């Protein structure tokens, strides 16, 4: 604001020598540009409201036809075949199965990589390794889907011959690998933010590197590390192409990772690939599942923000 008034003042001084017409024109142009900038800046807000409106208006129409409790508590998902059934639990359990199993890979590998980069790697090694991890982060998810179906699944089936051609485990492994760079880079930021004076104090007390890392550095960075895990979970829940390609299209209520399942996102893709007439129940169904997906990931994102804020940083 002060800068603003100063600029106006300065331009007023400058305009003493200018004739009035140019001055007025300049002023008008400034306010037109300002209005334009504000208008364009509203687009992110409109996008958010657009997403919420689109998802929840159609979801509301869906719940006019299907009771919300049947949707949330039902254990059979068969929205297209008669007799229809709209229990979303099989999809939700499918999503959770892939997410939890994926995190079993992403958490140790991601955190281990972060600790290596922040605590063990020489500056030179870090300069080489970080861009490689970034490349891993930039690979499109459909390519990870290729990896899951055509590389990981054959390996799984050679170890467990009873595994289905589409199975949750293969998708979970690929989802885990996909999330590793995210957890690694966010956790590394948190670890690097720990002041070196804390490490030095621990060394001075006779601790070795393992003790310094596990008893001082990681606990100090714990809120940032935890936030990276939660954001990883959010990514895994919303992940679509890997699970569509590798996990199958059978909404099974199972916790066996070798079976074919269907996740919330994979169901949305399955319906989108066919013709879905506007306003049909199938169309409303994908919006209801989309709203569920949106709520789940938003909760995770809010949780991550809360965790980051809960502990002061250094």
């Amino acid at each position: 604001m002060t800068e603003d008034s100063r600029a106006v003042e300065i331009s007023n001084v400058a305009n003493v020598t200018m004739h009035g017409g140019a001055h007025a024109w300049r002023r008008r142009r400034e306010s037109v540009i300002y209005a334009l900038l504000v208008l364009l800046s509203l687009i992110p807000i409109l996008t958010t409201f657009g997403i919420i409106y689109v998802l929840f208006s159609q979801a509301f129409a869906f719940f006019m036809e299907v009771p919300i409790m049947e949707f949330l508590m039902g254990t059979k998902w068969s929205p297209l075949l008669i007799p229809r059934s709209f229990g979303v639990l099989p999809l939700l359990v499918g999503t959770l199965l892939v997410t939890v199993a994926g995190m079993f890979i992403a958490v140790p590998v991601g955190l281990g990589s972060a600790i290596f980069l922040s605590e063990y790697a020489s500056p030179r090694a870090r300069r080489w390794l970080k861009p490689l991890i970034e490349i891993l982060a930039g690979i499109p998810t459909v390519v990870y889907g290729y990896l899951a179906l055509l590389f990981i699944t054959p390996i799984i089936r050679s170890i467990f011959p009873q595994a289905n051609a589409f199975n949750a485990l293969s998708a979970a492994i690929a989802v885990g690998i996909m999330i590793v760079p995210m957890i690694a880079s966010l956790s590394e930021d948190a670890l690097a933010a720990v002041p070196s004076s804390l490490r030095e104090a621990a060394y001075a007390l006779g601790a070795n590197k393992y003790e310094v890392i596990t008893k001082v550095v990681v606990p100090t960075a714990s809120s940032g590390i935890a936030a990276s895990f939660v954001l990883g979970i959010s990514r895994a829940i919303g992940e679509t192409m890997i699970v569509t390609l590798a996990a199958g299209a059978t909404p099974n209520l199972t916790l066996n990772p070798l079976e074919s399942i269907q996740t919330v996102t994979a169901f949305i893709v399955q319906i989108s690939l066919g013709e879905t007439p506007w306003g049909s129940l199938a169309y409303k169904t994908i919006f209801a599942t989309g709203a569920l997906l949106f709520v789940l990931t938003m909760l995770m994102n809010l949780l991550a923000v809360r965790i980051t804020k809960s502990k002061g940083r250094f």
Partner: protein
Amino acid sequence: MNANLSAGQSSTRKVKDRLFQALCIGAIIFSLGALAGLLLDVVISGLPSLSWHFFTNFASRFPEKAGIKAAIYGTLWMMSLTASFCIPIGIATAIYLEEYAGDSRLARIIKLNIANLAGVPSIVYGFLGLAIFVRMLQFDRSVLSGALTMALLVMPIVIVSAQEAIRAVPLSLREGSYALGATRWQTTRRVVLPAAVSGIATGVILALSRAIGETAPLIMIGALTFIAFVPDGPMAPFTALPIQIFNWISRPQAGFHDIAAAAVLVLLLFIFIMNAAASILRHRYDRRWQD
């Protein structure tokens, strides 16, 4: 007794220390091994199919005749439209937030929205594209619908990186401009933006390299998987590289899997070139204000 105990303790401490280091090294090797394994597999399966015909043929029922002409054109069309939407809007928002808004309430709300949008799964943008662009505005399953959806999807990346680039321009440059009698917009246009341009360009390239591989929102808005023509304008139906890859992977015949790998190679090549360009630009821009 005591000496023995402490000797034993110190050797287990040493073992733990070594073991932990080995585990961390193992983790990073696993990450890089996954990258290497993926690239190796894609190159081995895909390289033999990369012929000239692969780029000049349309999709086909026979894998040996199928090509990615329509997909390449569709992707190029979509990327240029996406860029022309998200660059002006993204930069305008960043300028407003950094140069005009200060800490106003509206600015805080916009920032909160941008942070939240960055965490929304890409498939959710597909719903927005389907309901607003395809149905409500009746752009149908066109390149335009795809590009608008993609532009909204990558908008947070463009805005945040443009904000960082603008913030990195030293205040003294702006003050110098004001001292010469320039208005706020003149200062922004002739001093701040030119100084921030390489940082902004880095963000735009990274945003486009994200958009080029996104598949789920395109499936939702109904980009077609089998197209035997090249889009002739923004309203034409289209296919894109990731959609074509998805379609070929999900077929049972092994012949299609090999050409899927070839198409993955082409897509990754696009992405690597964009990332390399971004990192070269970023390097230049990091050094800019150090002298």
